[in-house]
């Protein structure tokens, strides 16, 4: 790819990018969030055309007007957010768009045969008639890979494939990649997890702010150097200094259980205490009950048993609004669905979650002037880059949206902050800022529950670190001494770790 430039309204996503990939290589593309990696790969996959520049495959220049063109040339893409239809079976998802037919009628037998072949050849272990909805994350990813191989892809693009995997699953994926390489396929691997990239890649290209910075050989660089190339400077490190943990318990969970409508416990007998000035980290593979636990604490989900106490009061039956008014702040995992009104102006978003308190409202009336004043304060104090407070939340970048939400939730008299994946999808600058704010709030006595999939963040930012698996708390590790590998093992239940001692 040569000289690729792509513009969107308000932003230049790619600027003059140059990329050369050898056949049979695993070529990694690294850059921080928002650097433009995904946009570049979408161009390669035909999802949009570049404004400038050329793409050359096997010596021949190509122009793609849709993914079908890219597929026809042998390019396949596995997206970061899986593109699977939950209500369809694995078979239907895989053959979609390239169905084997007799005069338009689906030939299920041929499809099943081919899928089984691919699955066996590459060790994917998938069953064509499973409903995708029932599959876990690792399996879904393998379905996506099979989807791509089914169409005879020789060039695979993997966009952040390890974002949702634990270390063991990452090993399995890398093993699969080695098999693909052995068969002569080329793999393009987008990631921001530098140690993984160093393990598996033959060549690494660094992208920063939409342009290529440099292409390096993994044998010649360290993770630190790569990181500095990515950011153009020092990489921020999540770490706590002195302990500010007090003895006052602010939030207590007492044998809390949450069940699904058919009676399955999705949070199973969880007991937890968070003290003022303490950050309690909760580590776990996605889907092990963290989201449900958070919803239970916020009052969005009913408790099947157990109780929750805030500052000594039993709030188990309180409605969400009352809990928020009592001082629980919430940084939601999915900021678009739970944290923001995308089409509303910023100052109205300031009110969201706090619409019954000053300065947003006085009695039953909305205090527009007060809300606007305070929005300006949040924007300034938390470095939210925006031309004004009347723009809609949707026009801000992810990092700025998150900074705004953090600023909003830390305003007022907060006693407890529930931070769910607070730096997900956020650029490095904003990430550092958010960590800073969390540190400061903690020093001021805030009790924080931190849930994250970023092991470095968890290890660096927690005073106490617990592990959740299948809805139960299975162990506690010492964040000062545990390594990411050990934490990953504990998260998958490979070994139970207690007090930081490796097993």
């Amino acid at each position, binding site marked *: 790819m040569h000289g690729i430039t792509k513009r969107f309204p308000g932003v230049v996503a790619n600027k003059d990018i140059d990329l050369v990939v050898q056949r049979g290589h695993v070529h990694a593309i690294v850059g921080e969030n928002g650097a433009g990696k995904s946009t570049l790969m979408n161009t390669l*996959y035909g*999802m*949009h055309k570049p404004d400038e520049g050329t793409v050359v495959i096997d010596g021949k220049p190509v122009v793609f007007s*849709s*993914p*079908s063109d890219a*597929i026809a040339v042998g390019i396949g*893409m596995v*997206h970061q*957010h899986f*593109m*699977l*239809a*939950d*209500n*369809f079976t694995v078979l*239907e*998802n895989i*053959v*979609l*768009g*390239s*169905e084997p*037919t007799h005069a*338009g*009628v*689906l030939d299920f037998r041929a499809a099943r045969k081919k899928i089984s072949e691919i699955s066996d050849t590459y060790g994917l272990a998938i069953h064509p008639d499973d*409903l995708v*909805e*029932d599959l876990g994350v690792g399996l879904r990813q393998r379905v996506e890979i099979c*989807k791509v191989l089914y169409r005879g892809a020789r060039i695979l693009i993997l966009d952040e494939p390890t974002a949702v995997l634990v270390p063991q699953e990452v090993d399995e994926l890398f093993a699969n990649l080695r098999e693909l390489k052995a068969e002569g396929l080329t793999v393009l691997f987008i990631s921001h997890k530098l140690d993984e990239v160093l393990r598996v890649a033959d060549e690494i290209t660094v992208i920063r702010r939409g342009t290529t910075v440099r292409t390096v050989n993994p044998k010649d660089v360290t993770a630190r150097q790569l990181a500095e190339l990515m950011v153009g400077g020092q990489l921020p490190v999540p770490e706590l200094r002195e302990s500010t943990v007090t003895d006052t318990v602010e939030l207590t969970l007492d044998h809390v259980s949450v069940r*699904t*409508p*058919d009676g399955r416990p999705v949070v199973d007998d969880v007991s937890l205490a968070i003290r003022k000035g303490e950050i309690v980290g909760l580590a776990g593979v996605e889907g092990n009950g963290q989201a449900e636990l958070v919803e239970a604490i916020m009052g969005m989900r009913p408790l099947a048993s157990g109780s929750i106490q805030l500052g000594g009061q039993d709030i188990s039956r309180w409605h969400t609004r009352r809990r928020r008014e009592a001082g629980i702040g919430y940084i939601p995992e999915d900021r678009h669905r739970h944290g923001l009104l995308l089409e509303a102006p910023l100052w109205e978003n300031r009110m969201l979650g706090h619409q019954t308190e000053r300065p947003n409202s006085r009695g039953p009336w909305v205090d527009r002037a007060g809300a606007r004043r305070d929005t300006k304060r949040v924007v300034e104090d938390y470095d939210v880059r925006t031309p004004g407070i009347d723009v809609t939340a949707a026009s801000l970048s992810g990092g700025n949206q998150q900074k705004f939400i953090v600023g909003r939730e830390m305003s007022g008299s907060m006693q407890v902050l529930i931070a769910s994946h607070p730096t997900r999808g956020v650029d490095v600058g904003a990430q550092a800022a958010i960590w800073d704010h969390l540190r400061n709030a903690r020093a001021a006595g805030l009790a924080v529950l931190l849930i994250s999939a970023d092991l470095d963040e968890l290890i660096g930012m927690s005073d106490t670190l617990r592990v959740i698996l299948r809805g139960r708390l299975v162990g506690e590790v010492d964040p000062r001494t545990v390594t990411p590998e050990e934490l990953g093992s504990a998260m998958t239940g490979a070994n139970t770790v207690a007090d930081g001692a490796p097993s």
Partner: protein
Amino acid sequence: MTVDDSTTATVAPRAERAAASRRPNSLYALYLAIIALMLISFVRAVTGANDITSGGTVGATISLAIPIALAGLGGLWSERSGVVNIGLEGMMILGTFFGADFAYFSHSPWVGVLGGIAGGLIGGVLHAVATVTFGVDQIVSGVAITILATGLARYLAGVFFTGQPGGGPTQSPSIPRFQKLRVPGADSFFGKLERHHWFVVSDVAGVLRGLTTSLTPFTILMILMFPLSWFVLWRTSFGLRLRSCGESPSAAESLGVPVYRMKYIAVSVSGVLAGLGGAFLADFSGIYREGQTGGRGFIGLAAMIFGNWRPGGLAAGASLFGYTDAVQLRQGATSVHALLLLVAVLLVVIGAYQLWRREWIVGAVVVGVAALVFGWYSVTNDVPIEFVPATPYLITLLVLALASQRLRMPAADGIPWRRGQST
């Protein structure tokens, strides 16, 4: 319909829904049909309302169910591609008008069919343009099209039908209709059996008489639309691609499926089907009359929901609504009164089932309502004549209230989608 039902409806647990959708449908349906027949026979014997299983009623059921079913099928095509189509009523109205108009001026009912297709197609394409190309809210567009269709039909009727014998802006003159296909001898043979009023035997005779004497070529053609739709949508690659647009349009796009084009086709087909339903209605009544559709476009949507977005269930639901419609149209007061008993019995069964599933509140409410209905039945001799035409709508509500919870609509239904979107 507001799509964010995650906050209002409680969706049935996954395992159950998956199992429900993979049960051998045809066998299950057969069992249900037999049980239904026995129940109705029983009710007829007890109440003496002999019309509820007569050949005439069965024939009318088929003819009244079809417009509803076609509207529902139109809704199914559209929603399976991810577009909610509230404008079915408007497309049906256009179908009644153009169907009658074409049939009258060409002196042929077959050309009337073409008219129905044309009218519905206009509405369908409009809806597609508004929602797919321009991204207008789908329900708003549907309502706007229904408003437009009403005005358009009235204007055109005024233009074309005024001056014709019996015609005017609110109705057409009599139009040429399809002839019924009669199996020779069936009428008298089954008719005789019916008149004996024997338990079950006479009822079956009634059903058979209805089936053999009231079908027209149009009817048969329309009935074929259902297995045809099932085959196209579930057994061809075109159908798979279309359904993928309603489940995950981003996945479809990433695999090269032309999502916009698929939605256009689906919504257009949806309009055509609704238009055919309208033309059928006009043919059945022999005339175009303003307000003829009477909300059937919407009842069709209810049938679609009831049928879990599948043609088979949809047909069953439409038959149910058609049946109530037929009953109330014929011997209204007495037949509907008999139906009260049926409803009471069914509610008791449903209530008992809910209680068995530990749904105490729902079960108690249902059984309570059953008791009320039974009380009403025993205390009165017939249902007040004013309530009789409201029966199909009441049944629709009842069915939706009881059935809305165990259903699964296409995952991306109702969500406006734009190229390059990541959800």
